[in-house]
């Protein structure tokens, strides 16, 4: 870790999607974005639907490449890393929560949480123990053997949170984690997310169009006209 505690840094990042096969102009999504995220802090990116919030998160996490600019994770440019190095960073230092709580459908809740730990190199038994502990902490000790289709939307999202935290990452990327939930479940997930982020001292990059949810973060940005504006 660098002395400045700067964990993620985006410098002049631009992204456009190519024209479709049917023709049309390329669509510019992001234009020279600069952004920084420090350890154990949280930032929220808000904006209208289609403003490029998710694209920004995906580029920040190295899931998508940008055309211009650079993304530095812990001082290292993600676009210069090999697949092995990038995979290692994703495994050990990043956690993901997606809007549709993408779980592995062929695996139980317990296995869904244990798999990332196994990918990191932890044995199956200790990985299951770790997963069990985390699922208990998100209140799912009675749903360990249930598969994705046997869980409610809120329960799936709690499994996704436990899965994102199982390898004790430095940064958590959450893309509309409450977007598909009802109000009661959304509030529950919000509370749980912030409690765990605070407890485990994890940096959080939150994408949401929910202003009250965003306001719980240390910093709030808005994506507008392909640029990032500081809200708070």
């Amino acid at each position: 870790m660098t002395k400045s505690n700067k964990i993620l840094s985006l410098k002049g990042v631009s992204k456009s999607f190519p024209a479709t096969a049917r023709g049309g102009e390329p669509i510019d999504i992001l234009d020279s974005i600069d952004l920084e995220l420090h350890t154990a802090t949280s930032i929220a990116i808000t904006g209208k639907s289609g403003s490029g919030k998710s694209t920004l998160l995906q580029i920040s996490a190295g899931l998508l490449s940008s055309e211009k600019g650079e993304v530095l994770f812990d001082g290292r440019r993600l676009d210069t890393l090999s697949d092995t190095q990038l995979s290692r960073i994703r495994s050990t230092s990043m956690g993901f929560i997606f809007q549709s709580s993408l779980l592995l459908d062929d695996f139980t809740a317990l296995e869904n949480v244990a798999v990332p730990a196994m990918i990191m190199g932890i044995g199956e038994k200790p990985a299951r123990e770790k997963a069990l502990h985390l699922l208990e902490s998100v209140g799912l000790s009675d749903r360990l053997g249930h598969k994705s289709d046997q869980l409610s939307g809120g329960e799936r999202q709690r499994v996704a949170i436990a899965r994102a935290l199982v390898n004790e990452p430095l940064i958590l990327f959450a893309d509309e984690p409450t977007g598909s939930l009802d109000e009661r479940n959304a509030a529950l997930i919000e509370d749980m997310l912030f409690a765990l982020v605070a407890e485990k001292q994890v940096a959080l990059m939150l994408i949401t169009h929910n202003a009250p949810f965003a306001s719980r973060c240390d910093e709030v940005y808005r994506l507008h006209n392909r640029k990032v504006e500081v809200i708070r």
Partner: protein
Amino acid sequence: MVLFLAKRYAFSSENRHKGTSVRIAFGLALCLFAITMVLSFMQALQENQFEDIRTFESFDVQASLSFTDLERGNALVGELESLPLVDHAFLFSEIPVLIQGNGGTALAGRIRAIQSKGAFKEGLNLYRGVLFQEGMLSSSYLHLSSMPLGASVEITLLKKGKQATVIPSQRTMPIGGVFYTSMYDFDSSTYLTDLDTLYSLNADAPLSIGIFSSEKSDLVAREIRQKFPSLEPVTWKEANASLYGAMQLEQSMMSLMLLMMVAVIIIHIRNSSRRLLLAKQREIAMLRSMGLMKSRVQQIFVLQALIVAAVGSLAGVLLSISGILLYPNFSQRVYSSLGVHLNITLNIPNLLVLVVAILCFSGFASYIGTRRILKADIMEMFAHDEVK
């Protein structure tokens, strides 16, 4: 971890796409079974035909003699039988004839006089009467209605003449025995007698020596050539060169057809592997976002493909073994249509080659498939619609 995930994606009951794995394995098993059985049948049919040819028609090795003296011939037979590679040696001679039986029907054929020994003796079955009686002919069961036991038949043959080169000659001879063998062509065209009787019909009939050996006929012929330079031994392959060539061609064509079946298997593996990988594309993206390296993803799906192919191949091998073991019970029912009892055996080297080819191609197809999928960004893989 790789094994844990590969097993889950192969046949685990937790796997939503288990049905696809089962269908792939089932398809492989059936194809392997079909190829193995066709190969075994083809080989058994050929071996059966070759065996008949060697037993009744041309023997393992034969050599024409330049004389017709039976005593000299018998002395040579004794010398040949003392050779280590020769199991049985015997004199034989044959002449072409037209034979007219009851009802006036004339049949073209040959009279063969032979010292019945070895495989010929064992394969020759007596139906009625006594075979090789002096002054009598034996006809086959096929001609029973026109040449029953005891009936006199009229024989027309060509003999060396004094003024003309050959002249027709006619003799009447009784049927003293009825035989049958497993070779239809032999039975339909051959009448048997002893050498003295044949020479009483035609004193100029060419005399030959037949040889049976459990060793390779080429080696036997070479040994005879070395020890008896005056003889020109001919192996059964040389004596039936055109038939042997045709059967070799038939085998090549069958191999070509089997190669096409293998091509069908390969297309089946490739399509199934692609379908399975497409179905798992979103899960691959998820695993990648969790930090699973591309090489690990490939290992998982190659291992998964190998597990499916191994199960399919094992099922195919078991089916093939069962088919071959159960065939004797079934062969009585198909005897009437095939006309022969076949001893089918499993060709282990061929089967091993097929299994190894299936395993290799399954692994390769999966490797290529995952490599193609992994070229896309993780988010592009996420956007892929799940294949049901």
